[in-house]
């Protein structure tokens, strides 16, 4: 399972940044996770809280925003969001379709949606 190692990498950055800001505590963390970055947000928060328990980030609230998938089409120059196949309406689980929504070509490139960005931290000092 690698949500734990991702959480550790996030926490390392949070604590380094907080130390540079002479923080007494970290109260909030904002992260953006791309829709097709295959890291589960809930599990990530779970491990972050677990790992932060003995640190100045122990009471940190983590907010995760999902970044939508965007493609660029090399056939027709379309640039924008994708269509989805709804595979389980009960769970609202949708799978992105990478074909161009305008011309249906599969000559597309993913330009957004694979990232995992630590956006900011709020600290008390």
């Amino acid at each position, binding site marked *: 399972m690698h949500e734990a190692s991702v959480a550790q990498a996030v926490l390392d950055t949070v604590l380094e940044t*907080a130390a540079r800001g002479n923080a007494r505590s970290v*109260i909030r963390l904002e992260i953006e996770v791309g829709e097709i970055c295959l890291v589960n947000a809930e599990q990530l928060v779970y491990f972050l809280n677990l790992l932060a328990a003995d640190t100045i980030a122990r009471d940190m609230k983590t907010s995760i925003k999902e970044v939508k998938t965007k493609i660029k089409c090399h056939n027709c120059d379309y640039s924008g969001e994708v269509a989805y196949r709804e595979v389980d309406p009960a769970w609202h689980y949708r*799978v992105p379709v990478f074909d161009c929504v305008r011309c249906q070509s599969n000559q597309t490139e993913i330009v957004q949606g694979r990232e*995992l960005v630590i956006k*900011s931290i709020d600290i008390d000092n």
Partner: protein
Amino acid sequence: MSKTSRIRVEKDLIRAARELGTKNRDLLDRAGVRACNIMGAIGSGKTSLIEKTIERLKADYRIAVIAGDIIADFDSARFRKYDVPVVPLNTGKECHLDANLVRQALEQLKLDGIDLLFIENVGNLICPSDFYLGEHKRVIVVSVTEGDAIVAKHPAIFKSADVAIINKVDVAPFIGADPERMLSDARRNVPLAFQTSLRTGLGLEQWLNWVRNDLATAT
């Protein structure tokens, strides 16, 4: 008196990991090594693919393998019998190879003496998707024994690949799997996809020609 302030970080961990991969790529390029990341489902035929390739091409190219697996020795032993350099990478609990592990393996190889490097990834269609190891090409091997929905279930990793191989097509009738569906699903997201039976040799020539062509156009 305490004060709350916001520090902007803007650090993309995926991009940071990618930079390590790029450093590996630079190392490979300087040494003239062409690297393929062989990903795929558990038991799909990744090791067999590399074995057959070594068997058929070792007379023409100097081939080496980085064998990533839970217990790497099982696969390493299969490659060693061809007398090619093999670096086992025990991944243990990890679900994917990363650029850091691969770098350690690269440092154990005499890269100047290698033309073609196969990096066999851990059997997994989720985790390796986000991790760039420094490879020139990404290949995914799946087989009919995973069920014919396996390609459709994993668009993100297939979209990241250059070649998709649908293996074990000779046993499809016994399983009730439809390899044509798998091929058509793969072709939506991968520039090149074809069917093989690594056991009988079906499709092997097509794969070998792709490898030869990739090496020829790279140099």
